[in-house]
């Protein structure tokens, strides 16, 4: 049981770090799907 609590805490830590990193590196305006649509290019990761 204790190990599962550790797993949940670890997952939450990873998610928090990911959200923090995302907030630092992407612009809020670009999270709009419609604005991203105009800037996409095939053959690579999504230019958000």
């Amino acid at each position, binding site marked *: 049981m204790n190990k599962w609590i550790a797993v949940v805490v670890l997952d939450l830590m990873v*998610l928090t770090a990911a959200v923090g*990193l995302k907030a630092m*590196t992407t*612009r809020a305006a670009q999270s709009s799907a419609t604005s991203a*649509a*105009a800037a996409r*290019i095939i053959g690579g990761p999504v230019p958000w």
Partner: protein
Amino acid sequence: MLGPVGYAIWFLVLLSEACFVVCALYKREFLRYLPLNLYMLLCVVGNLGVYVCSRTYGVHSREYFYSYYSSDILLSILMYYVIAGLFSQVFADTNFGRYVRGAALMLLGLTALFAFVSVRSNGQHLSTEFVVELEQDLNFVGVILMYVLWGAVIKLRETRARLVQVVLALGVYFSAVAGAYALRNLFPELEYSILRWLPPVIGLWLPLAWTYTFVRVPEEARMASEHMLVTS
């Protein structure tokens, strides 16, 4: 539409992805590395589908939009499956090994929940916004997971050369993607010049690095543990 450079990069990405799958089939390692091969195979199919949609309907059409994001969300989830598989391999001999699958599923659920809560206030286009948000969140969860995985590789003194190279290639890929978007954030004026080409070029790195690893590094190859200790 894309120019000659765009199509050249796109074609190279497609070719290198197909090359990875063909090499795996030729060496009869397709099933042994199923998550990696499924990911690359879906990349090829997705790229072809997106290309057909872009030529048929145009890049500003809703059809292209949905084909692009639906294939991308599938690829993100499959990439997550690839990372979970790598965690399973690294932690196979430890007590934590049996918790990896549960932890991965829980994190995927939490990420989806977070993405849903983030976009819930948008009454319109909820599913579209959700797909884009989840795709972004999964990418950044992937960045963090790769650093956690690399820490585990160092700590557990993993010596399987293929596994180490696959993890490193993924780490470079995720870090470069995050770096590219950070640069776009810092230098918006470069967004439509040099930074425009960074994501597709980064997309080329992963199939090339993995193909090199699986062609040049034999399954039984081991790294000297001193090499790993130097980095730790």
